[in-house]
């Protein structure tokens, strides 16, 4: 094999890597390896000076392969590939060694971590030797977009996209638009009417010439790849069903959340005590303009209990983010409907993190609401009051701050039910091929740096389907997803990864084992030649056919046997 000129760049990542890995030692080790001609370490390799250093070395030293030992390739592989490209080198001549997420951050012994970093770097050096130049493919980007979910987020994304010139198919399962926000009365902290906001959105959405609203509809299938998806949507009207096929380039998933089922918490008596309501049931009451008990009486005592289903070991460990401010809003709305009513707010911690929230909390506490704190897993207990009491129910709270057991009267109890992932989130995830976390929320491409993209190119998530969120955050995500899509649509074409499988016709025996294995039907059988071949545009490079081919006729580009063998040798040397 021809002589390589490999450059090895070991990143300190500030102290993230350097603290646990002796980067100089990794450099010294790399410098001894055959083919390695340039070795450097630097504070932040991904920074502009870091990249410029690599680019300059490629040009000056005539490097033909580059190894960057730094963070996960899931983080900065695109960055360094671009740097190679800028220097005039094929971007696939890069290999990264993950010595941060999979080394310095998970070990606490410097010698062992350094040894592992050396091994990973050597694996990358050996592997990169066999890297082949690959050309990315450019495919047309269909400007149409499928938006799943007709709530606030779905409509906001649809409008933004349609205003930008994209045709949008907005699919909603219900017979009307609006989603969960349409069930809310006023919104915290500014007390704007949710109805006004949602009505304006619905009107604009319905009237927009580029938005096709598909009510009573569900997405049956989604096939293809970024820029070129085909989707089948089924619409049911009464006992009639119709299916339509649409071509779309991108998809926004905005399926939202469902509320926690309060009857799962037995000690609050929801479903048994008639005047124990969920927050959504109370919203209905507020929207009807009446705050009253089941018996039609004006309540003298109202109690609000926080964190129902949220922040608990039994149900959901996460915070649902909107309930604290909503509870304060209820205290206000109750007081304005029944001015002499006593309101108790029974909370775990008051989360007032958003813009205007702290002020809203202060105003709430000044309005003579009784605040009582309970410990996370020490729930208040509700029981029916006796005939001598002047109230419907009594709530026993082990008050955390005073360390006293306090009994609170209540005619109406509002349970602040949290958000949870929808029952069908698993089916949706499979439909569009994205992942869910342990709580069922959809997983973003990167939680901080790429929060609306997913690991499947062309599929975006926005709003509470990814985690509990309030309206401003959800709207921001809807617009972000739309912006991402428009930015790519403007170009008209999209470069897709050059990684796919290839069949060597001379080696193929025509056994057709691979034909059946391919999940994307990307392998075609040429009857005349009696040989299989891969339709590269459909191939997603899983490599299942490669490992299964009995003749070894299939190559996975960028994941070839020789590349992986070389890496195995490297990490074990």
């Amino acid at each position, binding site marked *: 094999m021809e002589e390589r000129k490999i450059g090895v760049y070991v990143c300190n990542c500030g102290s993230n890597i350097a603290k646990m890995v002796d980067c100089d030692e990794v450099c010294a080790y790399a410098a001894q390896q055959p083919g390695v001609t340039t070795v450097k370490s630097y504070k932040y390799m991904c920074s502009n000076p870091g990249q410029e250093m690599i680019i300059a070395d490629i040009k000056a030293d005539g490097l033909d392969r580059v190894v960057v030992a730094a963070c996960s390739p899931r983080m900065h592989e695109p960055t360094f590939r671009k740097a190679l490209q800028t220097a005039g080198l094929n971007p696939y001549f890069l290999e990264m060694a993950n010595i941060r997420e999979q080394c310095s951050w*998970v070990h606490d012994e410097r010698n062992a971590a350094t040894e592992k970093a050396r091994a990973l770097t050597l694996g990358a050096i050996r592997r990169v030797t066999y890297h082949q130049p690959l050309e990315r493919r450019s495919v047309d980007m269909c400007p149409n977009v499928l938006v799943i979910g007709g709530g606030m987020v779905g409509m906001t994304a649809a409008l933004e996209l349609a205003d930008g010139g994209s045709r949008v198919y907005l699919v909603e399962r219900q017979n009307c638009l609006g989603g969960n926000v349409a069930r809310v009365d006023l919104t915290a902290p500014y007390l704007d009417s949710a109805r006004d906001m949602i009505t304006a959105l619905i009107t604009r959405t319905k009237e927009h010439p580029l938005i096709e609203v598909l009510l009573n509809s569900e997405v049956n299938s989604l096939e293809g790849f970024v820029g070129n998806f085909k989707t089948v949507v089924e619409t049911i009207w009464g006992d009639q069903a119709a299916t339509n096929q649409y071509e779309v380039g991108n998809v926004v998933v905005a399926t939202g959340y469902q509320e926690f089922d309060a009857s799962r918490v037995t000690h609050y008596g929801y479903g048994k005590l008639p005047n124990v309501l969920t927050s959504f049931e109370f919203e209905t009451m507020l929207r009807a303009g009446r705050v009253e008990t089941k018996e039609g009486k004006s309540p003298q005592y109202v109690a609000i209990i926080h964190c129902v289903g949220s922040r608990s070991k039994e149900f959901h460990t996460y915070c649902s983010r909107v309930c604290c401010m909503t509870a304060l809003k209820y205290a206000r709305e109750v007081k304005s409907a029944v001015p002499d009513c006593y309101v108790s707010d029974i909370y775990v911690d008051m989360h007032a993190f958003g813009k205007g929230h702290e002020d809203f909390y202060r105003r709430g506490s000044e309005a003579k609401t009784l605040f009582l704190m309970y410990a996370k897993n020490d729930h208040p207990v509700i029981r029916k009051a006796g005939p001598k009491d002047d109230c419907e129910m009594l709530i026993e709270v082990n008050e955390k701050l005073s360390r006293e057991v306090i009994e609170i009267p209540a005619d109406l109890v509002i349970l602040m039910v949290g958000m949870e992932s929808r029952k069908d989130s698993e089916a949706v995830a499979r439909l569009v091929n994205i992942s869910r976390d342990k709580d069922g929320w959809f997983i973003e491409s990167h939680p901080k740096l790429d929060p609306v993209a997913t690991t499947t190119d062309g599929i975006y998530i926005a709003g509470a389907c990814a985690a509990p969120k309030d309206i401003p955050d959800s709207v921001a995500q809807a617009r972000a997803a739309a912006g991402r899509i428009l930015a790519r649509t403007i170009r008209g074409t999209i470069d897709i990864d050059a990684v796919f499988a290839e069949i060597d016709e001379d080696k193929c025996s025509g056994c057709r084992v691979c034909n059946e294995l391919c999940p994307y039907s990307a392998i075609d059988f040429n009857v005349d030649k009696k040989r299989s071949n891969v339709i590269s545009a459909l191939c997603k490079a*899983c490599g299942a056919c490669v490992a299964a081919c009995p003749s070894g006729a299939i190559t996975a580009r960028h994941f070839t046997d020789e590349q992986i063998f070389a890496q195995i040798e490297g990490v074990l040397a």
Partner: protein
Amino acid sequence: MSFEPKIVGFLCNWCSYTGADLAGTSRIDYAPNVRIIRVMCCARIDPTFVLKALRDGADGVLICGCHPGDCHYSEGNYKMMRRYPLLKKLLADFGIQEARVRLEWVSASEGQRFADLVNDMTQRVRELGPSPVRMAQATDMAER
């Protein structure tokens, strides 16, 4: 000093590799014995990769993919699952203990699970001692 095994981990890009990255971002400390090799899908893992790793000095091989039903490529993990018993049989014929090669599912959100898995695997392989392949190679070298 106790024997420290070398383990090669083949992880799928979408679930398990991301899960291993999450263990990192969550700063979950685990045994440094596993060297991870990324593949797009566990269905890409040719049995020869495992044999190659064992021949080149690995004391154990850990294969991780997405949970059944969650595969990025719909069903790659099922393909690996079906291939695995054959691989196990082959290894048994070579006299390699079952516990040295392990197939597990780790999702992108299971950083803790990945760390626990590495610790558990490391401990089990440590108890087994050096791979018989390595021992045989050492004897071979000595006889030459």
